């Protein structure tokens, strides 16, 4: 962690520039993605029918606006429905490719969202001023028509089934009724209030009642479906009604909310860029820069002395200038030396321990060196015959 922080501090200037660059680019990209667009919108009020049982399968715990928004968004993903909107809006589509383009454009730029329990907002954005208004109005009309068509289709299917059942049940009921009447005609005493129960008569009577009950039930269902089918169209147009119709498309104007949002998104992007660069620079740069780097090196060396001194020599601009001049002989020697900005700053001598470097509390007080008490002169006779002179000196010292 410390290495990453130190690495970031080392390149903080470049990180700052990079962060500002990413922030600016991100903010500009977010703005330019909206700039030049034209948009309009319409709000639709959706209600759940209280007295008409038009949608038995709907979830009573979900807002009607959410239900209708989901249905509309599903429909918008279909090519047929979207193409119908484009055709209704008068978009020119001479070729199949143009149709595909129009479909994709509508699917991309038409946004349907539930903004409340009953409110649906339909927004259309495009790079042209035309068609947006028509697309929205056509979307609402086609959606209502699609709902109607779907309900009618379901009602037709159900009616066909129930009509078939009705015919069957009617025949069975007529048969049992005829048998019942014939039995009464053949045995007039069974219907005169005789207390003796005729089992055949009772069976015929039960059969007739059962057949009649089934027939009445299917007749009730057919009546209900016809009622629902006829009321569904009314319900769709009445309970999915446009409150604010779409106006002419207007160019995008940045708002304070957009400003804040763009700034936040750009800031997050810049932060991620800075973090990524810091991590990468730490991983890539294997140079020794700080005491923690030195400590890491010493800790990985198992053969190293645990009592080794670690010192730092601060950057001195004068010396750096000399080094630069030495490295590059073409440079002028008249640069001179600048002030010692870092002289004495960050100076430290440390002792490396097994768990890290610890500053040596205080530099030891100057003490006289014990090596040259007598200060004998170096003999001038022999260039390398120093052992003899050293021996002479040691005798003198003792």
């Amino acid at each position: 962690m410390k290495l990453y922080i130190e690495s970031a501090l080392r390149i903080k200037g470049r990180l700052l520039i990079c962060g500002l660059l990413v922030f600016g680019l991100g903010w500009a990209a977010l703005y330019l993605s909206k700039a030049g667009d034209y948009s309009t919108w319409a709000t639709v009020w959706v209600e759940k029918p209280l007295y008409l049982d038009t949608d038995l399968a709907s979830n009573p715990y979900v807002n009607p606006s959410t239900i209708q928004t989901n249905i509309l968004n599903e429909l918008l993903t279909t090519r047929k429905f979207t193409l119908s909107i484009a055709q209704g809006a008068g978009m020119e589509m001479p070729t199949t490719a143009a149709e595909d383009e129009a479909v994709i454009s509508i699917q991309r730029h038409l946004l349907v969202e539930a903004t409340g329990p009953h409110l649906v907002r339909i927004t259309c954005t495009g790079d042209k001023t035309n068609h947006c208004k028509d697309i929205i109005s056509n979307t609402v009309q086609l959606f209502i028509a699609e709902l109607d068509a779907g309900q009618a289709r379901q009602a037709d299917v159900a009616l066909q089934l129930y009509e078939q059942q009705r015919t069957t049940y009617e025949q069975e009921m007529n048969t049992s009724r005829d048998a019942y009447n014939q039995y009464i005609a053949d045995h007039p005493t069974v219907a005169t209030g005789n207390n003796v129960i005729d089992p055949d008569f009772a069976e015929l009577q039960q059969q007739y009642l059962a057949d009649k009950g089934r027939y009445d039930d299917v007749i009730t269902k057919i009546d209900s479906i016809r009622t629902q089918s006829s009321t569904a169209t009314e319900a769709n147009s009445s309970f999915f009604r446009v409150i604010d119709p779409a106006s002419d498309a207007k160019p995008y104007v940045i708002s304070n909310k957009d400003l804040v949002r763009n700034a936040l998104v750009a800031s997050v992007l810049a932060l991620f860029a800075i973090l990524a660069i810091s991590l990468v620079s730490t991983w890539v740069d294997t140079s020794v820069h700080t005491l923690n780097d030195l400590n890491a090196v010493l800790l990985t060396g198992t053969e190293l002395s645990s009592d080794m001194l670690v010192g730092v020599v601060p950057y001195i601009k004068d010396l750096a200038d000399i080094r630069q001049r030495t490295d590059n002989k073409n440079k002028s020697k008249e640069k001179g030396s600048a002030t010692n900005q870092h002289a004495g700053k960050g100076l430290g001598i440390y002792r490396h321990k097994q768990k890290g470097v610890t500053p040596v509390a205080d530099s030891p007080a100057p003490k006289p060196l014990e090596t040259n008490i007598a200060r004998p002169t170096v003999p001038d006779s022999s260039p390398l015959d120093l052992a003899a002179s050293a021996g002479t000196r040691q005798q003198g010292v003792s």
Partner: protein
Amino acid sequence: MQLIKARSSKTENPLHMPALQAVCRPIFAQLQSEMSLGSAFALGITSFSRGDGRTTLALGLAIAAVGQIGTQGRVLVIDADISNPMLHVRCGLPQTPGLSEVMLQHIPITQAMVEAHPGVWVLPGGTRPLNATHHLKKLEELALFEQLGKHFDAVIVDLPPVLTPELGMLPAHLVPRLVVVARAGVTKRDQLQSTVTAFPDGTVSAILLNEYRERAPGWMKRFLH
């Protein structure tokens, strides 16, 4: 001994930089305190490659030593990097006579040493020899630097860098104690590690991080250090 005036301007000579002296003084004091009493202060300075600041720090430690010992102190700085001597350039001295001439017995050692600064004696590298390994081996056999330590308060040897394949581990045997210099932002971690582990155990007394730049703000230093 002869006294030759340094020819370089004061602004370019590390010996005339108070900032360098201030920086090296506590380092020298700590190194000195690590030594046992009565032993000669002979210290070798090496690094992984050239340009890490060996010569500058050798001069800095020398001037710090003189400043700490006092006006009567004498410190000898020897340029043992005879294949590429730079000490004379830093001090503005002639390259010859130097250590190579002394080894070839052309001149006595006393004639090759120059007092570049009051109390700081410099032995340049001299002419670049054809066989530097032979010369250094001879130095090892003679234990010259340790012998000189008995005549000076301190002997600081500017050793060749480790990245000199033809020399091998020879420089490590020239002096009893070594200081390894690493240049911040230049020396790689694996280079430093290989440098330190290359020497015999206990030979390396200290590692100096040269050109260190403190970039952390004051309130963060406690956390980082």
